[in-house]
């Protein structure tokens, strides 16, 4: 079952994340056009060759998203996908693109995550923003509107803190080990010029002395929201062979979707990544110790800790000593989020999730620059949506 590893990431566009955008707002469709052009240029592929797109929502249209984009770009496609899996969306789009290519549906797929601010309408509609409660839906009839939002159980900090608290009750909690994840990743960010926290080193003490936001999570264990944008090009074998860079072949994936709100998890500590990672490794025919780097979703430090465990790099419950014993920086013995992670690079909306893919691909392409992992051939990537409950695992490989 699964992919044959005959589709690859061949082009990357990624805008520098900015906490306070220095350029004016850009409509999402315009971002799509610019990101697509940059990613195709990077690969050396002509826009006329694009025959597939994977998108998330766009500001200019609530529905009919793919056709709105293809019309704007002036392209015609055989594969048009919208994915709605939060932070797992981009990783989910990568395997969908690879699968479509291997099925022979298409040959060149653009995946974009435009996350730059859009211009506001001159007469904005009144009423509360639909994003008032983060990812929690306040729509009429929504279970969250009735049973979670009234108790303040909204947005992301609260749910991840509940997960971390449960983890601590089960396995014990080592705040210094969790803090070290942010510190090690910051070392890599300090060697990655586009990172929002480039040249801003931190220590474990800095993390533990930063304000407690939701027990047991400190401010420096939480991603920094940014503006940005990213796109990649996924292409079939023949196109990949004539593209500009060493292709990053997509050899395995897994996807698992459970619930939306942690309250209703079957088992809060048994995340969707466990089956997703097993499937990805089985499909690729790779073992954990063949992985040269991991590039895993890191909205919070607890996300990284549980990902390392649930992807099978150490036994469950032993992540904290594992993190203490290993150097997670790009030059360490267990390179993890070598671009700095979203904790160090910044979280530009869905482009934050894309950054784990661009970084994994960049490393396998040997384009890591100052933060290149030596001889990087196999990268393990995750996307994480919601509250650890939507998980996608990917394996990228060089030739």
């Amino acid at each position, binding site marked *: 079952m699964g992919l044959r590893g005959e589709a690859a990431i061949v082009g990357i566009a990624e805008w520098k994340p900015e906490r306070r955008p220095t350029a004016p707002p850009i409509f999402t469709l315009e971002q799509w056009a610019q990101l697509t052009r940059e990613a195709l240029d990077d690969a050396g592929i002509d826009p006329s060759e694009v025959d597939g797109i994977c998108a998330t929502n766009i500001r200019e249209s609530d529905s009919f998203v793919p056709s709105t984009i293809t019309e704007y770009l002036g392209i015609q496609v055989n594969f048009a996908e919208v994915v709605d899996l939060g932070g797992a969306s981009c990783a989910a789009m990568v395997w969908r693109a690879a699968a479509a290519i291997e099925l022979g549906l298409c040959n060149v797929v653009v995946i974009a995550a435009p996350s730059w601010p859009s211009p506001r309408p001159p007469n904005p509609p009144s009423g509360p923003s639909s994003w008032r409660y983060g990812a929690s839906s306040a729509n009429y009839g929504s279970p969250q509107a009735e049973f979670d939002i009234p108790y303040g159980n909204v947005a992301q900090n609260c749910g991840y803190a509940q997960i971390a608290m449960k983890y601590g009750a089960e396995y014990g909690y080592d705040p210094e080990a969790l803090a070290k994840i942010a510190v090690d990743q910051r070392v890599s960010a300090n060697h990655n010029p586009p990172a929002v926290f480039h040249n801003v080193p931190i220590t474990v003490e800095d993390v533990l002395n930063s304000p407690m*936001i939701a027990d047991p999570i400190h401010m420096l264990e939480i991603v920094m929201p940014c503006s940005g944008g990213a796109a990649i090009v996924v292409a079939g074998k023949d196109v990949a062979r004539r593209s500009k860079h060493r292709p990053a072949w997509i050899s395995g994936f897994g996807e698992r979707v459970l619930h939306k709100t942690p309250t*209703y998890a079957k088992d809060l500590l048994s995340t969707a990544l466990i089956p997703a990672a097993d499937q990805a490794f089985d499909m690729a025919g790779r073992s954990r110790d063949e992985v040269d780097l991991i590039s895993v979703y890191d909205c919070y430090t607890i996300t990284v800790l549980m990902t390392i465990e649930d992807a099978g790099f150490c036994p469950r419950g032993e992540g904290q000593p594992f993190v203490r014993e290993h150097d997670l920086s790009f030059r360490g013995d267990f390179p993890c989020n070598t671009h700095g992670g979203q904790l160090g690079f910044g979280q530009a909306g869905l482009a934050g999730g894309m950054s784990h893919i661009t970084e994994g691909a960049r490393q396998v392409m040997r384009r890591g620059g100052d933060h290149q992992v030596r001889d990087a051939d196999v990268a393990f990537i995750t996307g994480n949506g919601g509250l650890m409950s939507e998980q996608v695992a990917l394996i990228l490989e060089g030739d």
Partner: protein
Amino acid sequence: MAADTPQRPVPTPIDRTRPFWDGLRERKVRIQYSPSSDTWVFYPRSHAPLTLADDLEWRDISGEGTLYTYTIARRPTAPDFAGDEPQIIAVVELDEGPRLTSTLVNVDEDKISVGMRVRPVFEDIPGSETTLLRYEPAP
């Protein structure tokens, strides 16, 4: 914790869920039960999760349970909750099995622990027909 005011989000019951909210108004915890699979269900649904049986019936329970997990939010989790911090946002596992979202009241922060026994506290929200189900430590 500051009293809830009408500015706080309050639930808008739908026909399907109204027996639960009516129960809270009567100081009862009333949830659904599926006889065909002998399982209890929360939140209220049209069909039982997993089996999709449409035999759900309402039953009163004690509402007591254990604290499955929690957090203490030091910053408001949304602008609407400004002034409520610290919010002790809990997941309670009912003795019948299902879990629900609540907040802990009448408790010292350092006396909270995962697994502790908790019992219902019914809070009528002024200016609304709503009663929320909060929890406190069981003696």
